[in-house]
């Protein structure tokens, strides 16, 4: 199987940010994304977030540069203000042009 390497970016963010995060991810070059919902705890504590519904869990398979760009935006616009956690990991995909 001919596959290519891409980055799987996972972002968990408080529910209010859902649309904004999606818009940003698309704007920065992701060709697709998927969102689900989770509940959790982290530095912010559960209470602060729960009232607004479950957090959004977005995942997007992207190229290295796009991953880099999105992470940069998270660092400047999201991490300082909001309850957001993110990580990246390499994955292999078929049809590399789709990502």
């Amino acid at each position, binding site marked *: 199987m001919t596959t290519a390497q891409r980055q799987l970016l996972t972002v968990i963010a408080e529910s209010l940010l859902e649309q904004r995060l999606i818009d940003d991810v698309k704007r920065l070059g992701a060709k697709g994304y998927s969102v689900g919902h989770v509940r959790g705890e982290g530095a912010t*504590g559960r209470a602060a977030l729960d009232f607004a519904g479950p957090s959004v869990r977005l995942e997007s398979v992207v190229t290295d540069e796009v991953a880099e760009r999105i992470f940069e935006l998270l660092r400047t616009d999201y991490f300082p203000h909001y309850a957001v956690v993110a990580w990246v990991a390499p994955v292999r995909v078929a049809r590399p042009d789709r990502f």
Partner: protein
Amino acid sequence: MLAVALVGSVVVDNLLTAPVIAFLVAGVATLARFDIRLPEALYPILSSYLLLAIGVKGGRALGLSDPAELWQPLVAALVLGVVTPIIAFVLYRRVGRAGTIDAAALAAHYGSVSAVTFTVVLATLDARGQSYEGYLSGLLAVLEVVGIVVALALVRTGHGGHGDGSEARWNEALLEVVRGRSITLLLAGLAIGLIVGDERLEAVDPVFVGLFSGALTLFLVEMGVVAAERLRDAREAGWRIALLGIVVPLVNGTLGAVAGSLAGLSPGGTAVLATLAASASYIAAPAAVRIALPTASPGLYVTASLGITFPFNVIVGIPLYLVIAEALT
């Protein structure tokens, strides 16, 4: 003597309604670490339903009202929308020793309203067989927005023009409030009620009227759980914040009663407006504040509005505002 008897009867009429008892039972169960949560999917359904149903009820009443009798209550609501957040801001800033941002955040909550508290006062009035102006849910929509806008304007005036992106966030927050689900559902309900009209609405009465109290009862089970959880956190917020969670609604509620009676509302309607003024938002305001003032502490404002003011109003405040309204009108 008579006053005492009145207070007693009002307290009992309010306390012993199914929604309030459900709230208390759920709260006590939660404090005793029993698991009484209803399924998670149910709450957004119930809260959307309640907003739509309040709206339909209001729109229907609006259709039966004389437009001339509307403007005085509307002015009263607008005045309350400006005054109550300012009072909350000053009290939380000075007495509560909160920072400017946190005080503005709290002001947005107390300037706005809680649709569920509104619903509880209606249920209490219904249980007493006391009438009120049906179009008041229109004012609910007005008050929900105005109070938040005023509170956010407070902090914007103070910090304006920093070019730190706060302007963009401010606009976003405003849009979030105005186009958000809770206002939209309320307004949609008003439109549906007004357009369809009293007679043709009978076909949907089993849903929009019949289920109302029961749905509110189920919803207050969740509110009891959430309020009890917030109450547990209240220690962290400090006693000043906790105290203001009672003082602010008392002040605003009294103002609301005065405004209502000046606007010529019935005793029931005056109590409703007082309750609106006294109530603190815990859906629209937190969402707007989270966007516009991300550095304000959610622990503070959610605890104050949901953990202290909401149960206070539901259990103690509403009967009080009813008595005050009775006295003023």
